[in-house]
């Protein structure tokens, strides 16, 4: 398969700990669109581009497309919208078709200051995922509960200790301690993890993400555009992309509980690895969409880094930690950096490939993988330096 390559030529994000502190004081500095503007300006500065260079726009939920473009003053010749998994797919396709030369992928969220709820009456995204709201008469609500239900069955079938999930939280906190832009930077021990309160058992407090305000922008351009602006050397290419969605019996949670979404993991991984010409052993670091710690072992097993029967041992060996066999969520991820719904993970991939990740830089980060699994909709991509 040959396609005209698209490159990520600029990234921008916001000051997560600073905005976290302001939100906690009840004095958020801006709204969802304002965070997006900050990230947009930083991404342009990162690439050395101006607003006039942008001719395509992808707007990430929960932002509204028209208002985002209005706030940024962008009349576009190509546009789309959706979640962080859809963003790169659409941008790569649009670049390949010649519909745009430089696309801004824009995300902003004021979920903390706006009091977005992910459980109980009025739970978010219930209009898109029926399982988020359908079982309210029995008190079953919150995306955390859906993953707790998955984990209970998985841990029983494979006889896993609670310390396996604890190690995910602990390892990601170790990464976060090396990231000045992570919200949670205090040391976390396994004993503190185990002593924390249950939320929905078998998940505890530190298995959950940090709901926070913020914005993220990625600039994706054609190879020709990047070359014309001398951006190829810092450009990051998506060498392989895979996607597979499980929808059959989704509300009754059959693919979640009977398959752990592994069929989608395998299908998406096979496409991405084949296209990139690499395999799990070539991956220097991985960023996994982690609304909950549970995502990490399930995804790693599904992608082929370990089997279900030995994923507990793989994680318990310290593989996910800084300096480990497979540094995982090297920014701290959703659990310790900030819940930017996958967008922050993509920025971290770019910084690792560029070698600009500071104290948390992974050695020889030639190929860094991103993988997300949002209710069985699986997306993964292998990022690496641009081919000249």
């Amino acid at each position, binding site marked *: 398969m040959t396609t005209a390559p698209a490159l990520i030529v600029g990234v921008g994000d916001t000051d997560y700990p600073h905005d976290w502190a302001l939100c906690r004081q009840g004095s958020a500095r801006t709204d969802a669109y304002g965070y997006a503007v900050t990230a947009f300006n930083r991404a342009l500065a990162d690439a050395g581009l101006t607003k006039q260079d942008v001719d395509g726009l992808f707007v990430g939920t929960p932002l509204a497309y028209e208002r985002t473009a209005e706030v940024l003053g962008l009349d576009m010749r190509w546009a789309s919208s959706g979640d962080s998994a859809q963003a790169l797919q659409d941008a790569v396709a649009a670049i390949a078709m010649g519909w745009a030369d430089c696309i801004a992928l824009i995300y902003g969220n004021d979920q903390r200051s706006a009091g977005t709820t992910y459980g109980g009456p009025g739970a978010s995204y219930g209009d898109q995922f029926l399982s988020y709201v359908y079982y309210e008469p029995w008190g079953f609500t919150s995306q955390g509960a859906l993953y707790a239900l998955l984990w*209970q069955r998985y841990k029983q079938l494979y006889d896993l200790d609670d310390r396996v999930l604890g190690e995910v939280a602990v390892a990601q906190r170790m990464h976060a301690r090396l990231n000045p832009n992570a919200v949670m930077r205090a040391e976390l021990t396994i004993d503190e993890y185990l002593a924390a309160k249950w939320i929905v058992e078998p998940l505890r407090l530190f298995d959950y993400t940090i709901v926070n305000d913020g914005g993220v922008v990625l600039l994706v351009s054609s190879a020709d555009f990047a070359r014309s602006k001398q951006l190829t050397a810092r450009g990051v290419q998506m060498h392989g992309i895979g996607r597979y969605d499980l929808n059959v019996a989704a*509300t*009754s949670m059959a693919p979640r509980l009977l398959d752990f979404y592994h069929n989608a993991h395998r299908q998406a991984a096979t496409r991405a690895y084949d296209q990139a010409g690499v395999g799990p052993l070539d991956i220097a670091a991985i960023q996994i969409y982690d609304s909950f710690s549970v995502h990490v072992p399930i995804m790693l097993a599904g992608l082929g880094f370990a089997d279900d029967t030995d994923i507990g041992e793989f994680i318990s060996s310290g593989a996910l930690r800084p300096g480990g066999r497979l540094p995982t969520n090297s920014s701290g991820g959703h659990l310790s950096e900030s819940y930017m719904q996958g967008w922050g993970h993509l920025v971290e991939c770019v910084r690792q490939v560029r070698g600009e990740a500071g104290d948390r830089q992974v050695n020889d980060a030639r190929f860094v993988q991103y993988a997300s699994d949002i209710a069985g909709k699986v997306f993964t991509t292998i990022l690496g330096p641009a081919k000249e």
Partner: protein
Amino acid sequence: MTMRPAPRRSLFDDTFWWHVADGQLHLQHCSQCDNTWYPPGPACPQCAGETWTWQPVAGTGALLSWVTFHKTYFPTMPAPYTVVTCRTDEGVLLLTDTTADPATLHIDMPMVLQHYQAVDDTGTPFTLYRWEPADTPSVGRAPAHCPGTTHCRVNPGCR
């Protein structure tokens, strides 16, 4: 009285809950390919067939997983409480709460469906159902709210 959030209802959920209120549990069954599915909807997810009938389920199944809520999400439903998912003998996954002690639960244990009464946030009474371990003593006895229908398939033999 047990307070619970009212069910979300599509057009097809109405018939489902009408059967529940009658002490039964019916699911849609495809007239073309014999598939049974949940939740209710306009067509068979297996063959996209638009011809189906409501068929009673046996009311028995096996435990797949469970969780215990320690955080209260609904003001009218204080934690802790336990929720289970079971696979019915017809092969469909159904999620409900349970009164069973979570420490006694294990994968594949046999479970049965029982009906019970609740009121929603507006004070309107409605009937719910839930999974209980098959050896629960109340199984086989008529619940106080039992409508006494002669064709009840949920608590067979209770009358």
